């Protein structure tokens, strides 16, 4: 591995050609994941979170999807835009993935055991017998009771939470170094959500596996992640550690998300404040900052020019794409403005 990051994504851009025109779903995204790290990507629906990770996995439908630029390096090797055969060297083996809706994400006509065993047979060349033994161990590891019996059952015989556990078991089959969890708890009810998150965290800390957790739920982020990327309108608007994001929010959008999140600190007269409006139309992204139209602090320049990522040279890992972080910008209440001077990438 050497000095390489586990996964390094730079300047990723993805477009979709639709009847209505070209949707610029992802517009130059950079992030990286270290071995054993839990990175959360947050943002509201339609901001490009899922497209980002699905492009890396090479599972966006192409056409209409098209990766128009950038690179994604897994342990230093380019994995973006590979043909199926080459991509299958890492898919399911180095990178496992679980999805939002476990009810529809498993093949309804195959037993759970066969679906888990399939990965093992394809990537590790195991026999059916060996593969199903490991599959049974995986079900035990993901806390599915009566694993032997469950192995021979079909998805429709499982509950939603159990299916997501089975999905996790399946994605862990080849002990991947990275697990991508695309809104793994969104379709589950709240009590099950917590169980699934705990399970993910436990598996992560035990096996030293890295996780990219996609979610729109800040509570999930606080509970699981070490680092966070906040995405908006196909771009990363703020990135940093969990503490940076929660306690030193440097982008008004992050601030808005926080105000819209319920907290259990009892405060009199504290209302949740929704962010007014909706994200911009990505058929023709605005030339300025994507958030300007909804931003209570927007300045003239915000509507004209898209800000670069600003960061404090003393904490280079915390960066925000906001003109309010430019030198000389007005002080804004609630926003963390350390007088950033360095900027990188536009």
């Amino acid at each position, binding site marked *: 591995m050497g000095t390489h990051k586990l996964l390094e994504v730079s300047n990723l851009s993805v477009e979709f050609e639709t009847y209505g025109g070209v949707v610029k779903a992802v517009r130059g995204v950079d992030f990286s994941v270290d071995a054993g790290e839990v990175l959360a990507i947050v943002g509201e629906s339609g901001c490009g979170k899922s497209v980002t990770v*699905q492009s890396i996995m090479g599972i966006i439908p192409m056409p209409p999807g098209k990766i128009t630029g950038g690179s994604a390096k897994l342990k230093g090797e380019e994995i973006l835009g590979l043909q199926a*055969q080459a991509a*299958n060297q890492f898919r399911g083996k180095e990178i496992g993935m679980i999805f939002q*809706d476990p009810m529809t994400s498993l*093949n309804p006509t195959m037993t759970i055991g066969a679906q888990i065993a399939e*990965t093992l047979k394809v*990537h590790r060349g195991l026999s059916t017998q060996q593969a199903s033994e490991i599959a049974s161990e995986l079900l035990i590891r993901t806390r599915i009771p009566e694993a032997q019996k469950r192995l021979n059952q079909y998805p*429709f015989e499982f509950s939603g939470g159990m299916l997501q556990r089975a999905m996790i078991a*399946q994605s862990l089959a080849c002990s991947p170094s990275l697990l991508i969890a695309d809104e793994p708890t969104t379709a589950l009810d709240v009590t099950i959500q917590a169980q699934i998150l705990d399970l993910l965290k436990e598996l992560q800390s035990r096996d030293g596996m890295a996780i990219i957790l996609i979610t729109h739920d800040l509570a999930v982020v606080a509970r699981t992640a070490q680092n966070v990327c906040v995405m908006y309108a196909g771009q990363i608007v703020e990135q940093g550690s969990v503490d940076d994001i929660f306690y030193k929010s440097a982008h008004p959008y992050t601030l808005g998300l926080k105000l819209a999140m319920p907290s259990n600190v009892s405060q009199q007269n504290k209302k949740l404040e929704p962010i007014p409006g909706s994200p911009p139309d990505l058929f023709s992204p605005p030339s300025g900052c994507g958030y300007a139209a909804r931003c209570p602090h927007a300045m003239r320049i915000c509507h004209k020019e898209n800000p670069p990522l600003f960061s404090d040279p003393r904490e280079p890992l915390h960066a925000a794409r906001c003109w309010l972080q430019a030198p000389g910008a007005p002080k804004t209440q609630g926003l963390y403005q350390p007088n950033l001077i360095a900027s990188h990438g536009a």
Partner: protein
Amino acid sequence: MLKYTLGRILSGLVTIWFIATATFLAMHAVPGDPLMNEKATTPEIRENLARKYGLDKPIVEQYVIYLGNMVQGDFGISFTQQNRKVNDIIQDHFPVSAALGILAITFAALGGILWGALTALYRNQLPDIIIMFLVILGISVPSFVFAALGQLLLVNINQWFNISFLPVAGWGTFAHMIVPSLVLGLGTMALLTRLMRSSMLEIVNEDFIRTARAKGLSPSRIFFQHQLRNAILPVVTVLGPQIAAITTGGFVVELVFAIPGLGRYFVQAVQQLDYTVIMGTTVFYGAFLVFMVILVDIIYGFIDPRVRLK
């Protein structure tokens, strides 16, 4: 599974009884009877004949006798073909129709699945456009046109090369079956192709196909293991009724190719009001179709685990 199968067979028997009763009533509701024509010249002869065939008895009694015989597997004697047993007619001619029908449905199912999968794979590209054009033709042109055209083509080919590649008409060898079964299965194949295509296109966008790709499975494995099996389900569903359509609708094709199938007797019997043959063939066909539908349902249970347990 056993309970499910037994349940289906029981309801199938009720269906057959219903078919028999309805046919019996409909047949007797038609004016005239099988003795109307030339043989019954005088009232005495007519009376004797009626007594011989039991037509002088009240309808209800005829019905009871008839059902009793049917349960024992005896459909009686034909009115118009001298002393020929209906059982014999079915025994002699049904195997011919069945062989033709089974070959046709096999051909239709295999072709439908293959073409459907292919068109889905090449969606909106040239192979898809060509095949879908042919499919529209196959659905809209009636089978007797294809039968005549097929025969004509065969004649021309044979003439052109001056050898008999395939027999133009008749029955006896496997070579005789090929063209008629192709013609007979064409409409169904076209229908199944369309069904398979739309089903495949639907499955491609399913979440579990995305999962399969994320698992790093090869495109061919995804196609065969995950897509095909799920896409086949709707095709299997319509297979039962389609077997019905093919075996009963085969008589036109049988006529064109001079095949001694059961279809011809079925049609003739209706024209001549040959009570026993009408009843025999209808009930037999009915039973055959009910059996086929049950068979398809059972097969469906094996393909789709969700059906098995219900």
